[in-house]
């Protein structure tokens, strides 16, 4: 159902604790966007590229991370070139390349399950603020459980609407899906209380 983005390799980066990677990321981001001049950003990008090599992520996978933003980066480059000149245009693109690649690298080298475990640990740090870690992790599991359930309901409802002889309208689809899943959710809530 939900395929992960994780790429399985044996590398120091894969073994690094998710919490460490998650902390390193905002630090890198802050440095990238505050240090002036081309050199720090170029070094930053070089560092990230080196880490991809360390993590044994194939270049093709790395480039795939950039596909959704490729156009907008070109767009930003041209706009900056027009407004602020070449050095700043290059700087803007370098920063983005480094940041997005670094962020993607964390995802590529960390299993969702480990990330979720780290997240749950993180939640328990906020217990003082009334955050209930057990409830948070329950919520996460429920989302993963609900996705196929909603998809089943969706296809049942779609069929029922088609059978009633009207073209499929989003409204006619959305209302029964929402009502049925809300009812189901209420039953699930009862069942959780009964089982715990």
């Amino acid at each position, binding site marked *: 159902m939900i395929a992960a983005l994780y790429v399985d390799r044996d590398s120091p980066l894969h073994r690094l604790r998710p919490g460490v990677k998650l902390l390193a990321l905002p630090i890198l981001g802050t440095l990238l966007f505050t240090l002036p001049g081309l050199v720090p950003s170029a070094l930053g990008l070089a560092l990230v590229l080196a880490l991809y090599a360390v993590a044994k992520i194939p270049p093709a996978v790395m480039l795939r991370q950039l596909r959704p933003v490729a156009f907008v980066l070109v767009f930003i480059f041209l706009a900056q070139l027009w407004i602020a000149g070449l050095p700043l245009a290059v700087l803007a693109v370098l920063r983005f390349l480094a940041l997005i690649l670094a962020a993607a690298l964390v995802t590529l080298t960390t299993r969702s399950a480990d990330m979720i475990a780290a997240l749950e640990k993180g939640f328990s740090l906020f217990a003082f603020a009334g955050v209930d870690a057990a409830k948070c992790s329950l919520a996460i599991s429920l989302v993963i459980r609900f996705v196929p359930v909603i998809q089943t309901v969706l296809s049942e409802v779609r069929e029922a609407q088609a059978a*009633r002889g*009207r073209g499929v309208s989003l409204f006619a689809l959305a209302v029964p899906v929402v009502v049925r899943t809300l009812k189901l959710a209420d039953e699930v809530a009862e069942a959780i209380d009964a089982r715990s």
Partner: protein
Amino acid sequence: MITLSGVGVSRNGRPVLSDIDLRLAERRIGVIGANGSGKSTFARLLNGLLLPTTGTVAVDGLDTAKDGKAVRRKVGFVFQNPDSQIVYPSVGEDLAFGLKGRGLSKPEIAGRIAEVLERQGLAGSENQLIHELSGGERQLVALAGVMVMQPDVLVLDEPTTLLDLSNTRRIATAIEAFDGQVLMVTHDLSLLAGFDRVLVFEAGRLHCDAPPAEAIASYLDLCR
């Protein structure tokens, strides 16, 4: 008259229905079989909700793959869970849903709705909110929403699983009073009394096709 010739259905590359050749002309036809044997898949073929992977399904000569829309006008479908079928919060609005696509005038629509509700023992409930109805009443509304379209054939996929004995009987009575042809998938064997013909599915094949008593016996045999 519904005909299936050389019908097979595959889903995700796996055959879920194979080698079905049938001419269905009887007024009351039951469909039984184990969970996952292909009953719902079969029912969905009959009004073009699902198209066969091989072979053809035709209703009164109309191919479901080519004349889907015309077939769906002829064949009404009632699902197990009324909540998947109901769109509007009130009974009247919901029954009007299908009719609005048919170019009827407002008084005609209101007339048809009143008539169907009357027949199902729900007279005057147009403004009733559906979420305040019991499960049995909701199932009756879902059935009414299909009946109001005046189909020639009624296909029902386990329409009574949530119902008690007397609501089951109400549905059974409403179905009995229906003029056209009925095909009903069910696990409740007692509903098949008085049916003309019963199909038993087993692992995607037609295992038995006989009058109720014989078909039920063959199904019970399978379950042993």
